[in-house]
């Protein structure tokens, strides 16, 4: 066998393998959070294999890059992040260390949910005296089901770019997700009509409140990233005395300040995650929103 025919043989074998790989293997999707994982699972269905990096009871902003994350990113075809610098403390480092050029920002293998929708809280001064601010906007877009529908559409398009053969599937699944949200929207709207409002620990559920016109009565953190001060809690108490509402905080936030304010105001303080469970799919995401809607609609 000549070298030439050998080379052609090897090339053909490689091409076959590559082709086989692209048809047979599911897309490896790495989602930073369970909500992004849920979206990827419902859009990608069995054409994707989804790995979620952060669990719902951990603060996405404070997470640290771990070797196992880097391992997962090494073989990823697509990274689905919430974005807008929410994961800045670990994701860029993890992606950089993963030596996988396909998922670098700017590549088709990198997807940021926050980049697909309008953001709230845009244009805060980039001044750390205001705490850990995000001048590009509030990143917690996963708390708004309507925005998640837009994100789902964009994700379907992104998946279709990576896997054109599945384009119809992705599109259909995105529409299915949109439909599921559309079915629940009126129910949520009805439940939340006239809801008295909520005090949050951090401005992390504002997208949900904004969507359903539920008043944000205040945040326990006066400055993002800095624990609530007694003075500020007292000020909130004076301001909200006599009103009704609910206090909601995440599992990784301190319970003392929410409980103190709840005691003083006679409200309930509940702990809710910003994310659905670790292995959530699309309907689990809707159930997650259900839990928030229920909490917001039934204050004392």
């Amino acid at each position, binding site marked *: 066998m000549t070298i030439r025919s050998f080379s052609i043989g090897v090339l053909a074998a490689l091409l076959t393998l590559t082709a086989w790989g692209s048809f047979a293997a599911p897309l490896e999707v790495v989602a930073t959070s369970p909500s992004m994982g849920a979206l990827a699972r419902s859009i990608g269905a069995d054409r994707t294999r989804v790995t979620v990096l952060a669990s719902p009871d951990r603060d996405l902003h404070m997470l640290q890059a771990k070797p196992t994350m880097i391992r997962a990113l090494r073989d990823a075809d697509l990274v689905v992040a919430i974005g807008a610098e929410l994961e800045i403390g670990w994701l860029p480092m993890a992606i950089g260390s993963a*030596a996988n050029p396909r998922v670098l*920002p700017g590549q088709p293998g990198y*997807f940021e949910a926050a980049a697909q929708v309008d953001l709230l809280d845009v244009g805060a001064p980039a001044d750390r005296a205001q705490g850990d601010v995000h001048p590009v*906007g509030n990143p917690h877009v996963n708390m708004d089901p309507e925005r998640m529908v837009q994100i789902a559409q964009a994700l379907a398009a992104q998946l279709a770019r990576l896997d054109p053969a599945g384009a119809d599937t992705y599109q259909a699944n995105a529409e299915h997700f949109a439909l599921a949200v559309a079915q629940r929207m009126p129910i949520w709207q009805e439940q939340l009509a006239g809801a008295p409002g909520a005090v949050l620990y951090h401005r992390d559920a504002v997208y949900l409140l904004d969507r359903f016109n539920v008043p944000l009565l205040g945040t326990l953190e006066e400055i993002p990233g800095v*624990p609530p001060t007694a003075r500020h809690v007292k000020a909130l108490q004076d301001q909200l005395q006599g009103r009704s509402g609910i206090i909601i905080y995440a599992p990784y936030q301190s319970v003392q300040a929410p409980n103190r304010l709840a005691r003083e105001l006679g409200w309930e303080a509940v702990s809710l995650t910003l994310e659905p469970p670790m292995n959530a799919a699309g309907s689990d995401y809707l159930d997650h929103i259900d839990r928030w809607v229920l909490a917001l609609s039934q204050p004392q």
Partner: protein
Amino acid sequence: MPRPLARIAIATALMTPVAALPSTEHEIRELRSLIDEMKTQYERRIQELESRLSKAEQEAHQSAQRSEAAAARAETAARTAAIESRPMTAPTVVEPSEAQSPKTVLGALTSGTAFNPQISVFLDGNYYHDTIGGEGGSLVGRAFQPSRVFGDHGHDHGHGHDHGGHSHGAPVNGFNFTEAEIALTGTVDPYFDAALFLAVDGDGGVELEEAYFQTRALPAGLRVKGGKFLSDFGYINKQHPHQWDFADQNLPYLNLLGDHGLLDTGLQITWLPKLPVYTLLGVEAFQGNQEIFGTTLDGGEQTELGLGRTTDGPRLWTAFAKVSPNLPTHHALQFGLSYAHNTQHQEVHEHTHQHRHDDHHDHDHDHGHGHGHGHGHGHDHSHRVVVHRNGLAGDASLWGVDLVYKYDGGGAYGHRNLLFQTEYLRSIKDLTVRSSAHPEAIGSNRTFTTDGLYAQAVYGFAPRWTTGLRYDVLGLTNKISGGRNDSFGSSDRWTFDVTWNLTEFSRLRAQYAYNNILESPGERERFDAFYLQFVMALGSHGAHAF
């Protein structure tokens, strides 16, 4: 046309294609004439816009088609994009989604740096006090090891650069400004990232800590790094002082690698293979200019002591492997094995002989090198003290084993997080005596072995508060073997600290250490050392490696 009116007109005209798509030829012509009219007034601005236009058009081809959300998008964005992309070359109609391109072309939202690298500045200073008049700060970096001798003409100056003056961790009693570290990082182009770290010490001296490029786009899990950088040898080696969990470096690193750790100019290749568990393999080649590990002397001393010239680089080679098993989500464990070899290491050992007029054989070594007898030939006997210098040359090896465990406790502001890390280092210098005032010693072998380990745990005992405990020891083995055998004791230390992390960007620390440092054979200093430290981080929000 008065200016304000013109502006309104042009703004309205320019927004037309966005508001009502598709644009007609007529509209475009109209816009063109308007632009031409304004061109004299806005010549400079238009030139600028033209260049942005071509960029925007390139981006337009890449950017995915985006839908009606654009309409609701801020008017400013629409206007900018319209001005940028439409009228001047505008035979094609561009989707309104282009209005979003400045924001989404990367598919990512960032605060943006407009082509400037990300800049961070770390300020690190302290109040220090020890019970031996401030000597302890430098003494901890000079714990006794037989291959490293400090004297007036100690070998501890690498050739070509002087590390004697600068030091991250040699405080004196009172206030110390350790360093201001300036970090610039960014993406060079699609193929490279680059980073620059400068350290400015308390006297204003500037030192280049790291300056390197790293590949972005290599396939198969490969990455290449080149320039001056901290080696991936071990675990703590790569960390800058502001990342440490204690105010000072541990004894093994400080004494076996020096203030800067294994920092040199060279090339690194790492490979992350497709294995079920995280495994990182890497090799590095460095020039070999080290403070302690694999140092060479300057040309004058090399000639005087017959040590031979400094050979061509690279002289320092490392290899490392890091493995991290898959543990439950909140746990992370990494095990590392590292090896470094420097093909050339030179030392000069000095000892003094005190002469009496009537007894040439009574001498006093200022360190532990007994070189037998028969000395002083040819020395001027009118001097009472004679310094003998022995030149040694050979190679140096360093082994490192590390283990790091992290638990993410999930509490507020780092509450209940746990970090445990431990490393063992073993330095073996295999040297031959090349010159000596004691001719019988020449040619004989000396193997210097010194090891050390540290173990530390840091726990978030309250939101924003951590406490740390560290034990470090140098010289569990601390010996000379070969042509001469001798063994020495060890130095150790217990350190306790409490750190208040006010935010992600500022940190205050109090640290106490009980030191038991072997200064020279048979001579120990036991002392307390106390730090109050601040670390401030200015600028962009950095991420740290595991």
